């Protein structure tokens, strides 16, 4: 099966082979870079995600694609739909924020222009209870657990 191709490779020379492989590799490379660039621009680890469960119906159904951003300069508010990951769990979860508590900032942090630390509680629209069980031990979500806020 490969003998035809080997014959033509030998005829065309090593440079030709390298060029062909390069074409293929650069397609993959540009795909990777576009993904990483998107992640950097939206400040989110994974800017496009798929909905896996039905816990946000009727807003989201299984299989829907979500576009996320994670603006570092905005506080999260009740009603925002966020995607978060519990450390130790692989699967990110998409639910709505129920409560936010903004902690009092130390003067140093306020001067630096950083946002106050927030503690968050979430619940799926279609679930009967909030997500405390899903948190596996921690009481509140913090910003660092959040992958992003749903934009579209």
């Amino acid at each position, binding site marked *: 099966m490969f003998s035809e191709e080997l014959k033509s490779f030998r005829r*065309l020379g090593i440079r030709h082979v390298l*060029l062909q492989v390069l074409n293929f*590799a650069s397609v993959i*490379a540009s795909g*990777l*870079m576009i993904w990483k660039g998107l*992640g*950097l621009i939206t400040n989110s680890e994974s800017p496009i995600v798929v909905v896996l469960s039905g816990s946000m119906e009727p807003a989201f159904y299984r299989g829907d694609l979500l576009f996320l951003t994670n603006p570092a300069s905005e506080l999260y508010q009740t009603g925002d739909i966020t995607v978060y990951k519990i450390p130790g769990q692989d699967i990110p979860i998409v639910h709505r924020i129920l409560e936010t508590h903004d902690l009092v900032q130390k003067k140093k942090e306020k001067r630096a222009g950083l946002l106050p630390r927030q503690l968050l509680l979430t619940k799926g629209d279609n679930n009967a209870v909030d997500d405390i069980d899903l948190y596996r031990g921690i009481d509140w979500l913090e910003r660092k657990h959040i992958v992003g806020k749903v934009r579209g």
Partner: protein
Amino acid sequence: MAPTRKSANGGRDPRTPSPTRNDTASSAASSPERPAGPLSIATPPGDRDTVKVNNSNVTELKHACDDALKRYLSRPELFKQSHLHTDIRLALGWLSVFVAAGTALYGYKVEFEESKPLVWAGLLTYIVLTTIQSAYAYFIEGNIVFVGKRKTFSKRIITERITLSSTTVPAKKAKPPAYSLSLHYVRSTSGGKSLLAKGKTQGSTGYNAFFDGLGTMDQEKFEQWVGELVEQAMEGKSS
């Protein structure tokens, strides 16, 4: 038998033509010190593989012509192909692929927030490399398909450089798509300091002259046409 042509050394003693000439050469006469042209070096008939391409794809037709051109002009005793353009493209391209792969791997291994500065650096490097590569291909390389050099030794060391660029002339109402080839030829000596001959020719023929209905390429006809253009350029004509 050797009328003086447009080359600069009209007054020298005519030298004997290169020994590989045979009577199928189109220009039997030679100006003094003129090295052999491609038409005078015959290809042994068993040497060719059949070339078959998709007739409706003009890009494939052009590439088939370009490859045939390269094979024809790189035969021993003829020009030695200079791979500079190809090598630069390969180097830039592979470098950008490795940068992209490294950045992606790093971003995968390291936590998102920490990895951000390096991932930015990698992304920007990739963009710069890709831009340089595209600019190089567009501005500097352009339509060039073959750059060749040859050094022959008659009385002095004669260096020749030939550059060929090809484009496809798209089909118009009654005319089929055509292959347009332009050559730039320079012959010099003493390390490039004294110019012996310079020629620029251009020719275009419809692809239908070289490819039959099934897509098989008539390489001899193509080589004949190319050989004539090259010999014209070697004479120092400009068209």
